């Protein structure tokens, strides 16, 4: 038996060691918001937060995450009370088929935390962290999330708007 903490709920699971974190979420906890796209870490549809960091849940074993805090799309908002990033994807039409959307949203939240921590990116002019979050920066930092419908322009708009809204409100942490 392993203990897995997902969206602040502790679960006891009897898992084959081969079970990926993604399969544990979908097949054992019925948290099917996290999607399986490629299952090889290339598309980002399976993105979740582990201890606040975004990772590909398909490329890690559930058994390696005992004691970690896993956050999935289900842990962000509800249909009645959307997380601001979820609302922003709706407002800006940041999807077509929607399959990559949970991964995009979770990845965007992890990405914004990385940006606020001052992490540079491949396209940052300087490594000193004093960069603006331009559309080019958002695209580079989100390159681990593929959208088969190519809704990229509106995904960038949605992320930028959610980030601007949070900056306007002066909120530092809204996930929890």
């Amino acid at each position: 038996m392993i203990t897995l903490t997902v969206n602040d709920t502790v679960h006891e699971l009897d898992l084959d060691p081969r079970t990926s974190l993604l399969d544990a979420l979908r097949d054992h906890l019925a948290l099917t918001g996290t999607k399986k796209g490629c299952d090889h870490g290339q598309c980002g549809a399976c993105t979740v937060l582990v201890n606040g960091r975004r990772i590909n849940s398909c490329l890690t074993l559930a058994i390696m995450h005992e004691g970690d805090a896993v956050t999935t799309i289900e842990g962000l908002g509800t249909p009645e009370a959307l997380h601001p990033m979820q609302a922003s994807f709706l407002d800006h039409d940041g999807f077509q088929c929607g399959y990559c959307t949970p991964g995009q949203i979770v990845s965007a939240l992890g990405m914004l935390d990385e940006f606020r921590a001052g992490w540079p990116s491949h396209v940052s002019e300087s490594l000193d962290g004093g960069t603006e979050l331009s559309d080019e920066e958002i695209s580079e930092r989100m390159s681990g999330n593929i959208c088969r419908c190519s809704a990229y322009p509106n995904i960038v708009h949605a992320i930028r708007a959610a980030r601007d809204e949070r900056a306007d409100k002066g909120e530092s942490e809204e996930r929890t």
Partner: protein
Amino acid sequence: MREFAYSRAGDLEEAGRLAEEQAGRFIAGGTNLLDLMKLEVETPKALVDVSRLPLGEISPTEDGGLRIGAMVTNADLAADQTVRRDYPVLSRALLAGASGQLRNKATTGGNLLQRTRCYYFYETSAPCNKRNPGSGCAALDGFNRIHAILGTSDQCIATHPSDMAVAMLALDASVETRLPDGGSRTIALKNFHRLPGQTPEVESNLQPGELITSVVLPPPPKGRHIYRKVRDRASYAFALVSVAAIVAVENGKIASARLAFGGLAHKPWRDRAVEEALIGQEPSEALFEEAADLLLKEAAGHGHNDFKIPLGRRTLIAVLSEATKEAAQ
């Protein structure tokens, strides 16, 4: 995925013992190993989870260098303030690699040990001397656009995919390990990876059960730090050619030059003859052409990857021009 026994090591001693008892493979970030296990390219009987070992620190060394714990993630290493300030070529190389999600999981030790992305290594129905020694190399007469042009053999023309290791090679890094008998040793990174020769399945000089504990960087070298990566798309792709360069110009002449290359060979590539040809010389297009000639004099394409010879030439010349630009003005 084939079945395996899983165990988590509580300390280094236990990691060594478990690996020896079970003939197991170490797993840390797992981003490459698990991918290969899903395809059954890798079929370990046992995995020893070393991800929670206390090897996650970045700390100064006594001589002014930096010790990077093997479990430091690629993301944390790229963002580390000391690395950004003193070893920018390493931050740039890391940020040019993989995706945000993968960099959050991939570790320093694991990055060094990642396997090639040769299509035929991944395709279990194809011959591959690296995956199945003695079966042949499908890349030699197959699709070989991403393959090596230097240091190849008639057994294997695969490339090493790491960006991080290319920058570390330019920085003269060394690898610290724990041996199965409890001892430790230090391996210069230039002696860590191997050329394919007749045994392409052996990619590093680690012994079975030997665990990377840290990578040590010497004191930061002076000069411009540049990492230039040429790839098929703007982000999240492996290098066709990459160059890590640390070049210092003093009194109008090149005082020091450290150059390492990715995408060209079975291991991160460094050629001292190229560096020596530059040192003491005034920067010029003709000098850079000469350096490129030296780098590529033994280069051989295999059809689809012939373009890497002119691409490697142009990339090196562009990087050297950029590195010496201010001094030339």
